[in-house]
């Protein structure tokens, strides 16, 4: 049996896990303190970045870009630089960052401090999803206060020459602010509309200054990597996808929830850990990495291991690790309509194809499910999706197109059936 909850969720079961005392008693902030006490800061920076590179940690926000490499892009401009944490967790199906903010906030704070130090950023912002105003935000605010009380943040930390100030910032509830440049715009007080890239944030980020944006889970992993070493971390997972990732398993599953597991475990084992399909039903399909990744039918996903390479090979992606499980009987047309409605509602409206196309996709799907579908609608759906894909400033356009493309690729006959039968679902 695979061991679960080794890194970020190592103190997961403890009710008081969020408190700073608890965090420190289990080795927390030791990595940060070690860095503060280091005699040679330049060497310490090099050490951190090399260690993160060696750990093989990849960004957990969805794109999977190697974190150490991303940090190494940051210049030492001599001016103010920023580290920004993307806690705008909004990808449908994903809910692990929320749990980190609630249960292990100090891992994130420590991770941001270490990351900030490594990339010459003395100011950090934690951009928290607007909907987290009720539970996570008060917790992370309290934790930030604790960290300041303990002298772990601020100016001349623990009498060293190191400065790091951290601020939490509550978004206003927009999926697009999870796109890193949309997030930076929002953080600057503007509308959350992604910027055209290049320039990338490492050159032109927050307020035009060099900035690195990392995901919550990525940053919360850092302290343990520095504390226990890259070798320890990369000993988990596979060679190409080392370490652990939190899977947010949802859908027709007996024990939905967040499971921190080594990368590369088989899909079937993940199903066992999360209690199997409800009512003993058969698996129909899985969206393996959040709603914007492509859907995989049961026969394909069952042969997959849960890592970057395997899922990519199968034609999808690991994404955020949000595993949406669909049992037999699920109507794929209804499912796609629901997903498309989300993208229709969340498009920022900046680029023409996405602004106009997402609404068009949704309305076609709506009329199919309402029994008003036309024979030409399937080709139209594919064509509209193809015309959005790759033609927009940010990846949102792609994210809205991929589900349409993959659902129609794998479940064409369900759409055809529904159109012919005036809204009757083939799955029912």
């Amino acid at each position: 049996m695979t061991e679960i909850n080794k890194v970020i969720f190592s103190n997961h079961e403890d009710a008081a896990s969020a408190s700073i005392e608890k965090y420190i008693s289990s080795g927390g902030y030791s990595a940060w303190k070690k860095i503060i006490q280091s005699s040679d800061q330049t060497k310490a920076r090099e050490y951190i970045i090399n260690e993160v590179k060696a750990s093989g940690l990849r960004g957990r926000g969805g794109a999977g870009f190697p974190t150490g490499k991303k940090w190494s892009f940051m210049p030492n401009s001599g001016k103010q630089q920023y580290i920004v944490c993307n806690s705008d967790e909004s990808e449908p199906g994903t809910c692990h960052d929320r749990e980190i903010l609630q249960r292990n906030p100090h891992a994130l704070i420590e991770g941001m401090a270490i990351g900030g130090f490594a990339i010459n950023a003395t100011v950090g912002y934690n951009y928290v999803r607007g909907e987290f105003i009720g539970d996570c935000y008060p917790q992370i605010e309290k934790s930030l206060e604790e960290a300041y009380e303990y002298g772990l943040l601020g100016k001349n930390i623990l009498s060293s020459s190191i400065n790091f100030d951290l601020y939490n910032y509550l978004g206003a509830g927009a999926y697009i602010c999870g796109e890193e440049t949309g997030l930076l715009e929002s953080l600057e007080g503007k509308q959350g509309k992604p910027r055209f890239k290049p320039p990338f944030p490492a050159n032109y980020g927050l307020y035009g200054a060099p900035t690195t944006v990392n995901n919550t889970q990525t940053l919360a992993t850092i302290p343990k990597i520095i504390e226990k070493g890259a070798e320890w971390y990369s000993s988990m997972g596979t060679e190409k996808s080392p370490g652990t990732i939190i899977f947010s398993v949802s859908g027709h599953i007996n024990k939905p929830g967040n499971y921190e597991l080594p990368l590369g475990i088989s899909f079937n084992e993940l199903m066992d850990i999360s209690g199997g399909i409800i009512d003993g039903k058969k698996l129909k399909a899985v969206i393996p990495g959040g709603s914007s990744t492509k859907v995989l039918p049961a026969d394909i996903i069952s042969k997959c291991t849960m890592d970057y390479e395997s899922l990519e090979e199968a034609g999808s992606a690991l994404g955020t690790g949000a595993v949406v499980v669909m049992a037999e009987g699920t109507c794929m047309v209804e499912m796609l309509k629901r997903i498309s409605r989300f993208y229709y509602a969340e498009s920022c409206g900046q680029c023409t194809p996405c602004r106009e196309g997402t609404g068009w996709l949704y309305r076609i799907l709506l009329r199919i499910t309402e029994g008003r579908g036309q024979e030409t609608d399937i080709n139209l759906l594919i064509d509209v999706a193809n015309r959005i894909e790759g033609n927009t400033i940010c990846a949102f356009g792609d994210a809205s197109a991929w589900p349409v493309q993959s659902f129609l690729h794998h479940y064409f006959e369900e759409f055809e059936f529904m159109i012919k039968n005036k809204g009757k679902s083939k799955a029912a």
Partner: protein
Amino acid sequence: MTEKKVNITIDGIEHSVEQDQMLIEVTDQLGVYIPRFCYHKKLSIAANCRMCLVEEEHTKNAIPACATPVSEGMVIKTKSKNSQTAQQATMEFLLINHPLDCPICDQGGECELQDLAYLYGKNSSRFDIQKQTKPNDNLGPLISTDMSRCIMCTRCVRFGTEVAGLPEIGTMGRGESSTISTFVESSIDHELSGNIIDLCPVGALNNKPYRYTDRTWELDQIDSISPHDCAGSNIYLHVKNNLIKRVVPKVNESINETWISDRDRFAFDGIYSEDRANHPLVRKNNELTHISQNEGISMLIDKLQAIKDKNSISALISPASSFEEQLLFSHLMAENQVSNIDHRVNQIDFSGDALDPLFPSLNIPLNEIKDMDSILIIGSTIRKETPIIAHWIKKAADRNCEINIINHSLDEYHFPIENYLLSETSLIAENTGLIVKAALSLMNKEFPDHILEHLSKLKEPSPAHIKTANSLIGKKSFVISGLVARNNKYYSLIRSYIDILSSMTDSSSGEITFSANTAGAYISGCIPHRSSFGRTKDIGLNALQISNNNNQMLILYNIEPDDCLFKDELCKAIESAETLVVFTPFMNDFFNEHADIVIPIKTPYETCGSFINATGVLQSFNHGLVQQNSLQYNQDILFDSLDYAKAEPLPFEDIISKTQLFIAESKANINPNTELPSINPIADTLECSNNYNLYNIDSIVRRSQPLQLTKESKIEPES
């Protein structure tokens, strides 16, 4: 400096092009067309319309030409299937929610969406779902909105932020429900706001007064120069059936770029006001009765020549009249021994006349203002006086030029101001003097004793004066005065201070003047103390003295009492003059009651001529098409008058080249004046207010209905 070159291939042809350019700039220069909506060369890059997507051989997705810098080895295929697919996709998306109301849309025929739809659109739409509609905002009397037509290119929004400098509209909402709007419903009041009409590629923002009047393809286009301020903005008159239908900017990168002010755009409506003077009139039995033009001219000249005391004849001519009219008019007066001639009806301090330059000028080209590092503005509400010159100053400010201001009112500016020396009107001169004094203390320069003595009598400069003076030293700096200074009781002193300050700090300096042709009025001799082209003459009475003179005959050429700073004095002169002769495009109560001879003239929109702008650029215009009435050209009226008066003919054939030579020579020989006005002005009892706002500055603007409906025109005059 050598520009780095990169080699790129466009449609199979290799080019070596300068680095650090966007692809669309390169293709535009090479004449390869890439379609676009959001891209505009004067605005920042938005890359949001996605119309300019083109295929690059090494890149998976099509790239936006407007936002992709050229790089070595790029292979661009603007006509390939992939490029076309991407562009056709964008066009389809743009059209799905766009209303099919082209037949009633004013943009029809000059619509970028319509044009590109012919090239990239389909014959029929695959979108059979209900189209989105969006609510329209009331943006005031100048701009109409049909927001359902909006394609969200955000040119107007970027214009507000980047060019106008005071964002008045923005994008609201997200996704399909995104709209362009004012945040809380309000009008758009910026003096350059009309430019968003031209920027809007579709019919969402349009010219409200022009709405539903004509189709664009029926209009003729005539080059012209705006007659309302001294910038000399280049414009096109769009004309149908000899009537001006609208005014749009004509590109002139060294004067107005692609912009014009709302005043330039909407003022022409004033020429169609009901009180146009259409017939020559003469007063008989206290009634104005029709006469012929020739009768009018002969009556005028006969009376003029019958008056023995030439000092009791006075003439005022507008600085908004063309240079040719001014020249002929001043010649007509000179030939009849009339030396009381002036155009300066907005000036009350004439003590510095002897120190006057040959003509007032900014002394540097408008497009060099943007390169300044420090600008001091003295006595000017510059945004209202000359919106286009204010725009050039904003461009300097965008480059971090330090701007300091001395003025009597605290106005809103579209650029940051370092020191704002808010000063009572009567203290503008003193504050200027204190900056001179501060500059003197910061510099080691020799100055004549009497100036040092004069400065020593002033009080000590404040830190703000010292900081302002310091900002002019050792940098590319520019000191500029405006209409408020010209109105000032101590105008001559202010101007001398500025001259001394600029020679002390090696700054450029200059003056913003009234109307389109104050410089022309100086050169043509429409001043009491100099004849045309700077020649000396017997000094006559200035405008203020004329108003207080016992006039047997008063001739007003294109001047109304409302144009005048000392309106009360002028009205008294109108009432008391034995014979009042008016050459005027418009009638008003004073003329109806007191004019003895009325000779109607055309406005600058209808006649031909030239203006000399604030930087000494002479620009000619010829409006053969726009005939408001069957009247003669103004120049011909004056030629006829000269003929009748048996005056020495004025050599007129090469007058333009002669004038240009004169301007060039005087510019080359600028002797910086470092003298103080001969007589220190004594505070007299004349109380004048700056009685103009943006939209009452001349007789045409005052009669323009759209402009008179704006918020700005409702602003009460300062007292």
